[in-house]
């Protein structure tokens, strides 16, 4: 069933329609939120819940200009952003928390760990641009920063990421 149909049914109070929307879209939004939060993955469920509630409260304003998944992801990103600490460069790293849930090649695990080690700002821009494919204009809007800041943050973030990846790879070997 199409998202639009499910949304209309949900707006009429249909629980089944909501559950269908939730199951369809939560895995992606949850992954984005998990990556944005880095080592604070324990907050992810609360952020996802908060994002869904915000989406439901504003759903009557959703006009279908963008895909529902894109609209929902933007709410998830803005919700996660409120938990960022823009001042801290890098938090403590808990390997158990940032290890991917599924078995993945060691290079992928290294990349996930390195992403989690980045500062909130670097990680947010890098994840949104390099993983999720957002443009700097979109990132500027989502994170409330200037387009130029997004560009420069990405450049610095990539530099730090490469350093972390190199360090982790040599450490693992």
């Amino acid at each position, binding site marked *: 069933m199409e998202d639009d149909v499910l949304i209309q049914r949900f707006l009429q109070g249909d629980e089944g329609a909501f559950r269908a929307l939730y199951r369809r879209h939560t895995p992606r939004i949850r992954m984005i939120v998990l990556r944005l939060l880095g080592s604070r993955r324990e907050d992810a469920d609360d952020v996802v819940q908060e994002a869904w509630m915000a989406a*439901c409260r504003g759903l009557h304003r959703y006009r279908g200009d963008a895909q529902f998944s894109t609209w929902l992801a933007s709410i998830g990103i803005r919700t996660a952003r409120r938990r960022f600490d823009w001042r801290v460069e890098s938090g403590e790293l808990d390997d158990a928390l940032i290890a991917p849930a599924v078995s993945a090649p060691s290079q*992928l695990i290294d990349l996930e760990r390195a992403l989690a080690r980045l500062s909130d700002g670097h990680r947010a821009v890098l994840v949104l641009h390099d993983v999720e494919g957002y443009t700097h204009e979109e990132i500027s809007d989502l994170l409330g920063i200037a387009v130029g800041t997004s560009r420069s943050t990405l450049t610095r973030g*990539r530099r730090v990421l490469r350093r972390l990846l190199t360090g982790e790879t040599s450490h693992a070997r």
Partner: protein
Amino acid sequence: MHDDEYTTEERELFARLARESDNPAGEEDRLVRQLRAEGFLRSPWHVRARLGLAAAAALLCGLTIGWYAAGARSLERQLTRDDLTPVEAAALLERARGAYATARARYVAAAGLESPAQEPSSADAPESEPIRTAGVLWY
């Protein structure tokens, strides 16, 4: 460093990153409960059906109790009691007197009698229920 500075291997690595994460058990129900509490969701049909049945049963029960209670306090029922105290008997007499006066006035009006002082009798009355009732009261 610029976008193009990722190596092919690094770009492939990014492309292979997981795009989805499994929903943890219980989160969906937690959200549904919250949505229901805030009025976004209707209760499931079986809950509504149970509530409807309970309301109907309560209404039926109330009507039955009310009907029995009204019957127990009716004048006809009170007149059949033989366990009245003197005070209750006096009250019943007063009540029956009032009922008789009302019934009599109705009879006068229904029979088209000119004088309300004229005593009704079964011979004057058309064969209908009110007269029988008045007769019982009078008796």
